[in-house]
């Protein structure tokens, strides 16, 4: 794998730090009055999701991380692992463990395309599309006549997520939900 010097650090670059693959978020150039320069770098650890602040001498380098982000369709879960398939026509399948699935478990729906992050060909993270359409499987009965305004109630969706929805929503309806904040957007 190539190495990257601080002057090549830019948002999105994947590098190895303390044994974990990281994605560079920001790189700030710092230099005292006269003298040598430094890079203050924000990186996201792709395994834990934590953000790290690190400082490097200008010209220091980090090893690149063999990280790929690929579109994959969710197939099924066997109880232990979640199975995805590449959408590039190769039909290659990847099994994702509980740690890598994390919170995304509650947004899984068969045949929907997710972004799967691979490190050295192992899935380490999954991110859902920004919007997803899911069916309401459980909620209090809808209120007739109430259309847009007014309160909200919890609804459990087919994927297991619970979101706040307007009072007029009924079981069996399909909703459009924003996965970034877990909020109801509209009826699908």
């Amino acid at each position, binding site marked *: 794998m190539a190495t990257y010097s601080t*002057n090549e650090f830019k948002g999105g670059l994947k590098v190895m730090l303390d044994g974990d693959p990281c994605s560079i978020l920001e790189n*700030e*150039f*710092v*230099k*005292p*009055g*006269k*003298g*040598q*320069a*430094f890079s203050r770098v924000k990186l996201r650890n792709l395994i834990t999701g934590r953000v790290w*602040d*690190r*400082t*490097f*001498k*200008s*010209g220091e380098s980090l090893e690149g991380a063999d990280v790929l982000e690929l579109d994959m369709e969710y197939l099924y879960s066997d109880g232990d692992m979640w199975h995805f398939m590449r959408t590039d026509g190769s039909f290659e399948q990847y099994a994702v463990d509980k740690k890598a699935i994390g919170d995304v478990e509650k947004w899984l729906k068969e045949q929907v395309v997710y972004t799967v992050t691979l490190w050295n060909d192992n899935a380490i993270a999954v991110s859902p599309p920004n919007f997803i359409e899911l069916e309401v499987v459980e909620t209090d009965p809808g209120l007739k006549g109430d259309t847009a305004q007014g309160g909200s109630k919890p609804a459990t969706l087919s994927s297991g997520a619970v979101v706040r929805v307007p009072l007029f929503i009924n079981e069996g309806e399909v909703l459009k939900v924003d996965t970034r904040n877990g909020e109801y957007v509209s009826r699908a």
Partner: protein
Amino acid sequence: MSDDWRSTASIETLRERARLLARVRAFFAERDVLEVETPVLGHGGSTDPHLASLSLEATTPGGRERLWLQTSPEFHMKRLLAAGSGPIFQLARSFRDGEVGCRHNLEFTMLEWYRPGFSLSALIDETQALIRHVLGRDPGPCRQRRYRELFRTQVGLDPFTASLTTLCQVAERETGMDLHDAERDACLDALMAFAIEPHLGQEGLEVVVDYPASQAALARKHRDPEDGAVVAARFEVYWQGVELANGYDELTDAEEQAARFVEDNRERQRLGHCEVDADVRLLAALEAGMPSGSGVALGMDRLIQLALGKASVAEVMAFATPRC
């Protein structure tokens, strides 16, 4: 449609900027300091090991030649001093490769001025006066700090006598960096940048003086009368944690200047940086005789940024580097 054709500074800010630049010119006109304009391109570049000079190939009467974009207008202005210009100032476009951030831009405006016959302390006073004049308000009292005393009080070590091991340990502790194989100046720079600078100039202007001899750049060195240590006759002015100006009691000895160019290029080579052509005409000018005196370079964009309360230099430049 992308919006990135727009200027990084608002038109209102550019008006303010023009107003502040007019104040600079008025300040020097009042003091009878001549405004000059010198080339941004030169046959010699800055050999400073920590500056990356840009260069280009140009067709001149001498054929195809490599010319260097100045990192500051210093060399040309010193040649004017040697030619008998008397006190001069310049608002000069300067270039430093790789320097882009909230306080840096690849090309920027340097306010540089030279005062033949001025002591370093007379120039410190004038620099303060200029800053007050441009701000149009009181930045608070001015305090002078010796580099050595600053390190002793801020990070608890003597930067001149501490062992390299101690220096590395303290610098690692204070900055969280891996500095196990770093040299003295790298540790001192790291401490300065992350443990000291952010606290400087919070209650007014703060002027740091008596730098380590290894950081003399183009300043004279002298023996400190109090403790006998050899220090560089240099100062830096800080306000709100930002370094604004860097002044020297200017080196006028051609032989020592030539030796520093050679030493710089040797250091550049060791660090894996390209060699930079030394300015032989500057050496000739020093040989002919440059009057003793002091000079200072002030980052005009930073001063404007702070004067207008902006978060980055990009906000006070028409088109900062990413949009140029």
